[in-house]
């Protein structure tokens, strides 16, 4: 409740946040491993915070909507309903749309601040591949988490948002690595 004691609030929040920190450091280690690849494509670092933030934003709202829809009976734990399809489509459309926006924003920001960077098309290709592929993976991961937590008798509202946030970062960084590799292999710089 809102009027809980300081001790209760800290006790309930701190262990979870420390746990996410450890998972986040694993993601960070993957990122640390690809720093050399990122170095080959100047300006690419700019995409990392917005990509992670967008993934969290789309994923956690999807998770929250699916949880409410389950509670309301619009989504069934083991059947594909129309409502589920609408949510899948909207999450995929938002991922595609926002990946294009991020590519444009990243290029414009580099131009405005005079940072050295790759070409506009390279930004767009990397942003769309990394943003959309991670969107597809995370959409299905989100559905899986919501269904499992519901079946196990946990409230999906409590479980989905934090686990999607943490898993989303990891999936996004891996997809970013794949996008970079693809661009380098195909020589699309």
């Amino acid at each position: 409740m809102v009027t809980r004691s300081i001790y209760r609030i800290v006790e309930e929040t701190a262990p979870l946040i420390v746990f996410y920190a450890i998972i986040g450091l694993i993601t960070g280690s993957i990122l640390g491993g690809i720093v050399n690849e990122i170095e080959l494509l100047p300006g690419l670092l700019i995409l990392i915070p917005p990509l992670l933030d967008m993934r969290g934003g789309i994923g956690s709202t999807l998770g929250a909507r699916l949880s409410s829809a389950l509670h309301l009976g619009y989504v069934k734990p083991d059947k594909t309903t129309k409502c589920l399809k609408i949510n899948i489509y909207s999450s995929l459309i938002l991922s595609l749309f926002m990946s294009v926006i991020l590519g444009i924003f990243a290029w414009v920001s580099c131009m405005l601040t005079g940072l050295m960077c790759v070409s506009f098309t390279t930004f767009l290709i990397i942003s769309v591949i990394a943003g959309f592929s991670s969107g597809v993976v995370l959409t299905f991961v989100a559905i899986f988490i919501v269904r499992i937590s519901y079946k196990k008798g946990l409230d999906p509202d409590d479980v989905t948002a934090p686990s999607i946030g943490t898993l989303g970062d990891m999936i996004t960084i891996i997809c970013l690595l794949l996008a970079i590799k693809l661009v380098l292999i195909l020589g699309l710089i």
Partner: protein
Amino acid sequence: MIYSLKRILKESMPVLIISAAVTMGAGIILNKNSEMIMLLPGIIIIIPAFINMGGSLMSVLSSRLSSALHLGFIHPILHKTKTLERNLFATLITAVISFTSLGFFAGIFTRIIGLEGLDILMFPLLTLTAGILTVLVLSFLSVIFSYVSFRKGLDPDNIVIPILTSMGDFIGILFLFLTLSLIL
């Protein structure tokens, strides 16, 4: 049914676009410091966890504040109340615990994977200093945003959390590199 494709897209896009523009600021700061990152690749491993942490602390604080506003434990006119004080203090204590352990584990992680990083004691110092500064600024913004959106008749849950997480990315990265340049 309350869900339609059009409605979901229409309600999500503006918030996502604003967030994208704000977090691009974090990207610019990260990019400006790319030389430092190449010299000390160990720094990059704390970045996803560090930005996430500010965001998590702030969404917890903001959703508690907005519930308290809805329930009337905090008055929509800004003055000191016990609930407000208690929530801010709890956020600060949680932040000290979380950011210190992030730095501690980051030191261990860089040793394990063998990345050039900071001294093992410098990591907690960096994350704690940068983290506390970030949380102080964000808590202040969280209180202001919650009150303003509540008084304007908007539900703080829908507005404050997404905007605050994005601003957290920006302010967090800013303080992280400011602290780092002070330490080095």
